[in-house]
């Protein structure tokens, strides 16, 4: 009867096995079933973000400067490429999309599994859809594309878009490395408003990630619209002026075979004197922001980069302001009553003999002769107004010398620099554009610091340095925007406005969501007489001074325009940088205009005609062709 107990034993074993299965099944399905059910559901739902179209950019009247449209693009989901076929697929995409293997590699090289490779035309899209089998893991999706209807117009204000680089990622750690962000201009400074909110589409997928149906969609919302302070027509006029002034500057150089110092870069800005809004801002050369949309090739980029086409010179150019800076010295002299010691009277009417050089003795007994490097000629005896009109260096040297002799080593020795800082030099004006430069207002402190590093002579700050500052040379550096803002501040009676290029932000439905109200950086205490004299003297420059030739055929409104020329020395073998800073109308100023032509030559000859061109338009006239003005300081 052994069979009996042995078979009973087997029965027990088999029963135990079934009891184990039963209990485990109970646990998995009943005790923990709910938890499993939740996890199982998660597995079957996949979601993919949908890109939000970037917000629009419009000029002050609403003309569209940037918008987004939808276009098909090749998307690759690397999870869905069958193993071992990736290289083959890359080759196919390379020939289909006309991208080099390197470009394909870098497009694939992304931290996310779904990668946008390239925007394509409808024909290519249909081709891919019809040959889906040959492109496993490749999808065609409509993605928003940035469009710039006006092309390169206002490109430095608008900026451009692109992939974030390492610096961007460091700055904004939550950024998707695959995202498209603003890289320059308002595209960058208002990126968070322009971005919009990406949507999400949730799908049910099977184990191979194939989409079965759509569960829900949270649609992407377009970003907000920027309404710029830029006036498109003025902007176009300003850009024409820059193009023409470059050819004007180079005509003679080419004729003289002076190809080594051709003018290559120029910039201009038009500010609203009463609220700091930027009516126009341009740099030459410019670029078409649309070329960045599909990704700029390396060679395209470096070609443009070599010309500094991406640099917004109006806020990123550090130029010696030269004689345009005499406005600062002028205001200092008038407000502080600091007129040259050797003037005929210690009043604005006191005259100085502008005979081409200034000779004076320092405290240590040494004597020095300062030539008026541009005007060795006899100009006669000039008061401050006449000196401003003729841009007489001797007079303004005299003001610097007076400061040096009156206040040397006292607290007030940097009174000129203080006035410059009051007027916005040497600081960020805080314009709503990225990469603004501060410029430099040199003083004893800076020179002592530089002397320690061996950059300047070891004696540090000396009287001659202050004299150079007085005529905007030496180590004074300013951005064209700073010069425009300071002229606007003096002309409007003393308010230094914070410049801005965006006046308001509206949501996609047109509701205003943010307004950039005019914001005063500071109120500068200027006497009414100084303001009135400054306006008058600006007109004297264009009427009979250094810009008179350039403004001679201004036409209607001639009586209401004014400005100041400037000619900044550059290093050896480089031509001078030409400046013009103007205000109009002088009786009730509305606009401040600055034109800078790097290596353009004389301010009065080159920059003043460009300023005249712009002012003609602003005064309601029709700009006339550029003709060289007088060779002046």
């Amino acid at each position: 009867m052994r069979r009996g107990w042995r078979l009973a034993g087997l029965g027990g074993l088999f029963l135990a096995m079934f009891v184990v299965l039963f209990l485990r099944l109970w646990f998995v399905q009943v005790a923990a079933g709910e938890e499993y059910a939740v996890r199982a559901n998660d597995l079957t739902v996949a979601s993919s973000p949908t890109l939000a179209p970037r917000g629009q950019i419009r000029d002050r009247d609403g003309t569209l400067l940037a918008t987004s449209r939808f276009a098909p693009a090749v998307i690759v989901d690397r999870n869905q490429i069958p193993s071992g076929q990736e290289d083959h697929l890359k080759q196919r995409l390379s020939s289909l999309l006309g991208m080099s293997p390197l470009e394909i590699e870098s497009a694939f090289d992304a931290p996310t599994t779904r990668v946008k490779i390239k925007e394509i035309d409808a024909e290519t899209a249909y081709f891919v859809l019809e040959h889906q089998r040959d492109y496993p893991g490749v999808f065609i999706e409509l993605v928003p594309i940035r469009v710039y209807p006006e092309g390169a117009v206002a490109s430095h204000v608008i900026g451009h878009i692109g992939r974030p680089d390492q610096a961007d990622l460091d700055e904004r750690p939550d950024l998707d490395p695959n995202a498209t962000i603003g890289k320059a201009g308002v595209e960058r400074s208002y990126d968070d408003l322009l971005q919009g909110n990406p949507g999400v589409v949730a799908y049910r997928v099977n184990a191979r990630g194939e989409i079965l149906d759509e569960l829900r969609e949270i649609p992407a919302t377009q970003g907000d619209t920027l309404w710029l302070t830029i006036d498109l027509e003025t902007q176009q006029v300003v850009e024409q002026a820059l193009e023409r002034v470059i050819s004007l500057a180079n005509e003679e150089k080419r004729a003289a075979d002076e190809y080594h110092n051709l003018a290559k870069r120029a910039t201009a800005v038009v500010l609203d004197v009463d609220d700091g809004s930027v009516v126009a801002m341009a740099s030459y050369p410019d670029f078409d922001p649309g070329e960045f949309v599909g990704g700029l090739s390396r060679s395209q980029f470096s070609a443009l980069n070599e010309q500094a086409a991406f640099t917004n010179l109006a806020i990123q150019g550090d130029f010696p302001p030269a004689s345009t800076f005499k406005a600062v010295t002028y205001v200092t002299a008038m407000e502080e009553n600091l007129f040259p010691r050797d003037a005929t009277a210690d009043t604005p009417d006191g005259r100085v003999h502008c005979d081409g050089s200034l000779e004076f003795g320092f405290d240590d007994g040494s004597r020095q002769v300062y030539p008026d490097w541009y005007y060795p000629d006899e100009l006669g005896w000039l008061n401050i107004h006449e000196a401003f009109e003729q841009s007489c260096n001797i007079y303004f040297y005299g003001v610097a010398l007076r400061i040096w002799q009156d206040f040397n080593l006292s607290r007030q020795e940097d009174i000129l620099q203080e006035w410059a800082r009051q007027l916005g030099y040497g600081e960020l004006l805080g314009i709503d554009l990225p990469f603004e430069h501060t410029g430099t207002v040199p003083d004893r402190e800076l020179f002592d610091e530089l002397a320690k590093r061996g950059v300047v002579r070891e004696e540090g700050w000396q009287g001659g340095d202050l004299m150079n500052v007085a005529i905007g040379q030496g180590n004074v550096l300013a951005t064209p925007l700073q010069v425009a803002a300071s002229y606007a501040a003096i002309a409007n009676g003393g308010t230094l406005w914070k410049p801005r290029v965006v006046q308001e932000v509206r949501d996609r439905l047109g509701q205003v969501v943010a307004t950039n109200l005019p914001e005063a950086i500071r109120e500068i205490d200027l006497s009414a007489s100084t303001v009135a004299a400054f306006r008058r003297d600006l007109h004297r420059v264009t009427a009979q001074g250094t810009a008179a030739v350039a403004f001679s055929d201004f036409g209607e409104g001639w009586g209401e325009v004014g400005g100041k020329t400037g000619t900044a020395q550059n290093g050896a073998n480089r031509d001078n940088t030409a400046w013009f800073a103007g205000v109009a109308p002088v009786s009730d100023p509305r606009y401040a205009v600055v034109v800078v032509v790097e290596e353009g030559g004389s301010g009065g000859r080159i920059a003043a005609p460009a300023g005249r061109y712009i002012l003609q338009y602003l005064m309601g006239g029709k700009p006339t062709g550029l003709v060289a003005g007088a060779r002046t300081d």
Partner: protein
Amino acid sequence: MATVTGVQTRVAVADRRRPGPDLFLFVAFLALSALGILMVFTASRPLLEVQGLDPTSLMQRQIVFAAVGLVGFVVASLIDYREYRPLVPFFYGASLVLLVAVFAAEPVNGARRWISLGPFQLQPAEFAKLAVILTLASVLAAVQDDEQGMPWKRLLVSLAVVAVPAALIFRQPDLGTMLVFGFLAIIMLFGAGTSLRQFAVLAGAGLVGGWTVLKMELLKSYQVERLTSFLDPTSDPLRAGYNRIQSELAIGSGQLVGKGLFQGSQTELSFVPAQPTDFIFTAVGEQLGFIGGALVLLAYAVLIWRLLRIAVNARDRLGMLIVVGVASLLAFHTFVNIGMTIGIMPVTGLPLPFMSAGGSAFITMSVALGIAHSVWLRRSPVPGRSYSG
């Protein structure tokens, strides 16, 4: 006593005159086969649709296999199992030849388990299981003295009978089937009267052998991985543990009453790999819930219970041992396969009897069940008394 004897005699006479089939066994077999066909359809349909194939094609094949299996069951029931005894060496030899022939075939998924016969793939390992059961049963069937117990010589011959096909299957490689042979051998040796002392000696030898295998790295790394991954399925979720996690998730999400036929998201969305074959139970668990799963367990329990009842009533040791072999074959397959889908057994690739899609296993199991049924139909005339003592 006389009346009792009279009743017993009457029953025995009736049985002997017209032996009745075991309806419980037959119904459980049919029910599992039918449910298997349905489950194969639900599990194979989505993937076939995606591939643009006839969604019922795999089910159609399974219906053919089930029909052939049913015929095999009936035919095997009708043949007297004792007729096989002289043929056993032939069966055994033939299965060895087929196992060797597998090595000439192209490998599928890195393994050589199939011999291609037109549209069908023959899996010799499945037939070898039946051949080994019959061979072991006939080796162990000889009447033995209760006092002496299992002669060592017979024990060693039995082990040799298992070792040769097991070694061939190891080369395929098919770890699951090797384990089946081990389990079969232990259970049949136990049923045949091997003493606990003998088992202890064998276990000791087995430990030394196993240690040697590990030391000499005879197992392929993926085999070791598969065996160990079930201890921690998250360790390698995309490979060895993936199937297990997916199937456990699918079954768990079925909860008490299931999601309903064709409503199982994991099944419908093809999340469980090899679902119509090795992981058919996930389709049951997800769609029919704990109630459905428990009923399937019950059906297998009924099969095992009826087989043990046949073993108790078998006419001779040969019949008893064959049925014990068939019962242990079914029990082991069921336990390992379902255990694998709910996370308590490693992933080995043993099909679920009568439910997993596939012909070789279905037909072998059906014929094995038929042979066991044949033992029932030819059971001893007096219940409780066996010829073998």
